[in-house]
């Protein structure tokens, strides 16, 4: 978005050290420079195939690339290491034509053999590597491995990979998977150098069974094709990357990238204000206005998330659809957004943002109508409904920056229609424990940020099976979701998920509230940062203006 770039930062200038690095290197002068970004935590490790968290992926996106990328500003698949692909009629066979003249940072050529080596590597994982805290994405999306101690993970949907020509590879699946192409934009499916994987024993997750430790590849030698090369990682402090001068695409302008770990949100803000860093993610909504006034640039991502109010139907009163509709009518989304969510947040009508396949423009809505809410409650025989309201404290998620404020806003809206709200707070992990693991909750705040353009990643995750979060058993909905998931292409999924969204709207399992806008903040010297709804942000687009 816009930022008053005219004003320079006042009173910056960290006193310490403008010293030129020793040992040759950075030329300085035209373009170049060091881009310093603050992350909220360390990466877990550097091999994205074992990653599932944002900070691991943020680093990986600079070093690695997948076959498929995203169209800037959307979640839709776009060519990257594959220039084009075709899918067979039955949706099982996918043929990729590969970008020419690409090599990994260790000079291993990127070709069809390398593609197959990566697919085969994931499939061949054994033992500890199959654990969901390591291979979350592969295990979840390909649903199994070549062999496994766990019968449920035996096989999966991967059928094999063949190198047809030097620059053409075909990946076969045993079941159709409409999300296959878009899912390949996840850093977890990045192409990694087969030579380096082998040399540094990437899959040798060491340690005993109870005590996995990552390999030398995953901690010291990540090797991809991306615009930056890995330089060093000082745990708890910073990851340093340098420009890949042999990059096949548009080479980066900055010489070096440093991703510092600054866990405290206020500390990130202060570091930016005093010029120690050039940018940070997950800007607290309350800081946006002040930063803009001081001349910093705020970049908004198109929201790819959803915040909702969930109903637990293990609570007898909430089994009555009229009660659920009444709560939906009691909520004034616009007021909620202005009171507790960042500017630019869009109100939600269904359990997915509008960028996702299957979003339904015509879905049934329950507009703000307190009189209707009261009437429905009276009709259901509970005009003085009393309900437990669960929310987490001390946590900030992209879809829920300040749960306490959101709770307060909703509480007053519910009270306005005569509902008694009994608040119950928990710290984040305990909260997840309670909501997802026990029936002991009433109505609750929760949400989700999507990983790639897949409707199943939203509504399938929420309503795919009976679970303690929602406490209902709705076989019709479950089977509709199973069917939609099995359709071979996004084109076929579109109407199926639109229908599912309507089905959910009729059932009112909860109230979709909003898709809050996540923001990044940058020093005015940073230009060309391209925010992406799925955080597919690669820093070769950045230039640093002269200070």
């Amino acid at each position: 978005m816009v930022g008053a770039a005219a004003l320079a930062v006042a009173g910056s200038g960290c006193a310490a050290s403008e010293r030129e690095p020793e040992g040759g290197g950075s030329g300085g002068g035209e373009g170049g420079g060091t881009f310093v970004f603050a992350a909220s935590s360390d990466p877990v490790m550097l091999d994205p195939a074992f990653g599932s968290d944002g900070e691991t992926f943020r680093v990986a996106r600079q070093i690695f690339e997948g076959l498929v990328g995203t169209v800037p500003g959307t979640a839709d698949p776009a060519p990257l290491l594959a220039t084009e692909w075709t899918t067979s009629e039955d949706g099982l066979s996918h043929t990729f034509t590969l970008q020419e003249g690409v090599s990994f940072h260790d000079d291993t050529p990127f070709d069809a053999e390398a593609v197959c080596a990566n697919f085969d590597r994931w499939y061949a994982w054994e033992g500890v590597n199959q654990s969901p805290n390591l291979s979350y994405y592969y295990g979840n999306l390909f649903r199994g491995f070549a062999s496994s101690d766990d019968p449920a993970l035996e096989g999966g949907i991967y059928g094999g990979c063949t190198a047809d020509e030097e620059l053409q590879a075909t990946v076969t699946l045993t079941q159709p998977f409409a999300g296959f192409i878009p899912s390949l934009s996840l850093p977890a499916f990045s192409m990694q150098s087969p030579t380096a994987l082998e040399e540094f024993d990437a899959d040798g997750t060491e340690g005993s069974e109870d005590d996995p430790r990552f390999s030398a590849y995953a901690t010291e030698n990540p090797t991809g094709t991306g615009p930056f090369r890995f330089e060093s990682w000082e745990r708890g402090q910073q990851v340093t990357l340098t420009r890949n001068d042999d990059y096949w695409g548009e080479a980066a302008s900055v010489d070096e990238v440093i991703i510092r770990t600054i866990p405290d949100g206020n500390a990130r803000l202060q570091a930016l204000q005093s010029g120690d860093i050039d940018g940070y993610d997950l800007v607290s909504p309350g800081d946006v206005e002040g930063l803009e006034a001081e001349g910093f640039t705020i970049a908004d991502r198109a929201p790819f998330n959803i915040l909702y109010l969930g109903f637990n139907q293990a609570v007898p009163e909430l089994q009555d659809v009229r009660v659920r509709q009444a709560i939906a009518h009691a909520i004034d989304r616009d007021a909620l957004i202005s009171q507790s969510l960042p500017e630019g947040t869009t109100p939600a009508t269904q359990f997915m943002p509008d960028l996702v396949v299957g979003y339904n423009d015509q879905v049934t809505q329950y507009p703000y109508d307190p009189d209707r809410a009261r009437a429905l409650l009276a009709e259901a025989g509970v005009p003085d409904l009393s309900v437990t309201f669960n929310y987490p404290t001390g946590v900030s998620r992209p879809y829920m920056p300040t749960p306490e404020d959101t709770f307060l806003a909703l509480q007053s809206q519910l009270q306005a229609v005569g509902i008694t709200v009994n608040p119950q707070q928990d710290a984040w992990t305990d909260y997840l424990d309670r909501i997802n693991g026990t029936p002991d909750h009433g109505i609750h705040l929760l949400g989700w940020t999507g990983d790639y353009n897949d409707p199943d990643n939203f509504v399938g995750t929420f309503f795919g099976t009976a679970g303690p979060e929602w406490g209902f058993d709705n076989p019709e909905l479950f089977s509709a979701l199973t069917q939609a998931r099995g359709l071979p292409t996004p084109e076929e999924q579109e109407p199926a998920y639109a229908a599912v969204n309507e089905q959910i709207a009729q059932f009112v399992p909860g109230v979709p509230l909003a898709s809050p806008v996540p923001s990044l903040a940058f020093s005015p010297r940073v230009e060309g940062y391209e925010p992406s709804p799925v955080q597919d942000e690669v820093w070769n687009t950045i230039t640093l203006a002269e200070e």
Partner: protein
Amino acid sequence: MIRFIARRLLLVVPVLAGLVVLLFLWVRALPGDPARALLGQRATPAGIEAVNELYGFDEPLLVQFGIYVRQVLTGDLGSSGYTGEPVVASFVSRFPATVELTLAALVFAVGLGIPLGYLAARRAGSWLDGLTVGGSLLGVVVPVFFLAYLLKLVFAQWLGWLPTDGRQDVRIDATHVTDFYVLDGLLTREWDAALDALVHLVLPGLALGTIPLAIVVRITRASVLEVLGEDFVRTAESKGLAASVVRRRHVLRNALLPVVTTIGLQTGLLLSGAVLTESVFAINGIGSYLFTAISQLDYAVLQGYILFIALVYALVNLTVDVLYGVIDPRVRVS
């Protein structure tokens, strides 16, 4: 003396052994499911089961305890459930940051605290005394994080004199030998790197050192006042000893005993990691890491770190006891 130290060291062993048992139980009594903490919002029933099996969280407690004891005995201590980083290695790499920070805070607290406390006592009832006593009261009650943000706001943001956070400017390409950054700079003769690391210690040192400073001031003042009223001081004075000799040899030396005890206790506390200071200043010491480990229910890290901290605490206390003998011949141990 050596026998005394050896005996005290031996005493640490049963303490640590007891702590191993307590820690094991305490960590498992923390609310929450470690597998869910590990998987976060992506937890599915099958995933939780798989993780429990992998990390042995589903084994009987006795079996888990057996594994843990074997790890402790082999000096292994396991690795973080999150990052797979071995606990021992992670402690070794993070402890220097905490030690540097502790030393900075101590230099500030002791260097300023003892003279201030002494002067305040010598001029009891003066404006200086009033200011010192009042100031030290303020120092104890002001929340550390508030002070930390305030210091950053004034000295880093408004005045721009000092860096906001971190241990060293990231653009400096310093060589690290010991992971004590100031020391590394001196050893490798990268003077500007050493200076930069030192400058980075100023604000966190002030923030962390304020409470110890206030305590040292108050203890010193009270102790000096007490000694000043003692008979031997009057005797010394009436013998005609020079006032400066009386002050140095009789007053200060005797008054310092309780101060040393206090400093020892404070050092132990500071070394166990200053969670708030470390997070506000983005210093990756053991405090901030331990804090994360608690929220993540990272059992191995919690068990290992607290054990290490207990060991450090015991060693600091031993050092204090030995120092005692140096200052006061009466308690010199045989």
